[in-house]
């Protein structure tokens, strides 16, 4: 019996030793942290990752509060229409719960997120400016934030309806209003709560919370268009490339 018990131990050791031999790019040292923001503001600087969450509804734990239109859009969607399958941008929040880490850099009046996925970035203005008036929609929208204690509250509008909320195919309109809170819960953890409010797709706002964990190594390069061999094979309503 004792010998049998050694088998799972050996498997664990093999898995851990494989991690220890990761390719050099996967174990590059962290970049120097930006200076702490001071003024009793929470320090979010560093490289972080959330649990990969391809289906927000599974995390929500119950059926999403779809409008009839939203329910039909989800029921009839084709996975092959996912914009990210074509290396189009993730939108402001999907990159956070992708399987890739990201770096947060705080500077006076702004918080910048450098996403490994697609080598893209997102900016959240914390200098007190309002949203622009009559803004055209963009893939990442316009994000403004306000520090409250150990939390940064972020408000985002103007998000193009072309982005999807997740890999499972949850979509949204350009009426989507996203609110997020980033709460420093420890030196190595941030609790992220996101609320999606979109009267076209959902009858009421709904929220999901995930925990960001501090990472030991730098982010890597991830260029989605490098070798996207999948495109010709998708089952899609899009014109074939």
């Amino acid at each position, binding site marked *: 019996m004792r010998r049998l018990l050694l088998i799972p131990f050996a*498997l664990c050791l093999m898995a851990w030793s494989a*991690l220890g031999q990761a390719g050099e790019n996967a174990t590059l040292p962290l970049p120097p942290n930006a200076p702490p923001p001071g003024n009793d503001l929470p320090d979010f600087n560093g490289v972080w990752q959330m649990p990969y969450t*391809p289906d927000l509804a599974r995390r929500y734990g119950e059926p999403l509060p779809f409008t009839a239109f939203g329910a039909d859009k989800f029921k009839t969607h084709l996975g092959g229409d996912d914009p990210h399958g074509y290396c189009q941008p993730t939108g402001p929040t999907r990159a956070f719960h992708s399987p890739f880490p990201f770096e947060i850099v705080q500077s006076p009046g702004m918080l910048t997120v450098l996403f490994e996925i697609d080598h893209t970035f997102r900016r959240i203005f914390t200098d007190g400016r309002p949203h622009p008036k009559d803004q055209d929609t963009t893939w990442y929208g316009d994000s403004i934030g306000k520090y409250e204690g150990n939390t940064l509250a972020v408000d985002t509008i103007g998000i193009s309806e072309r982005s999807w909320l997740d*890999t499972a195919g949850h979509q949204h309109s350009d009426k989507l209003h996203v609110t997020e809170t980033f709460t420093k819960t420890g030196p190595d953890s941030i609790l992220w709560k996101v609320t999606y409010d979109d009267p076209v797709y959902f009858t009421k706002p709904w929220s999901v919370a995930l925990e960001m964990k501090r990472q030991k190594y730098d982010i890597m390069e991830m260029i989605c268009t490098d070798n996207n061999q999948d495109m010709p094979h*998708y089952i899609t309503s899009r014109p074939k490339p």
Partner: protein
Amino acid sequence: MRAAWLALFAVVLSATTVPMFGHHSFAAEYDQNSPVTFKGVVTKLDWMNPHVYFYVDATAKDGTVAHWACEAGNPNALARRGWKKNSLKAGDQITVQGFRAKDGTFTMNARSIVLADGSKVFAASSDDGGPLN
């Protein structure tokens, strides 16, 4: 004792099923009702984002050769788990199990890759909505 077994099994599982997808869902391209298994020789490996692709020539009994394009996980995620771009290389004899593309081409999503000596390469992807091993 049984609880200890289960706990250990859970640790092993969690250490070996790290998700790797995120670029597209399994069903966008592959058919879980079309499992395929073949032996062949690796002709090329592209260690590139968003997915590693490798190409295999599989010779049938009648001598015809199928040229398979096989999708593996994301190279960054694979590197973080210890795999390298030379973990699988041209000339390797392998057995591949996975699922064929819905469009019927010789394109497949590889869920298991076994070298001639029995060792496994690029532990399978998961959490893309596709079937688990």
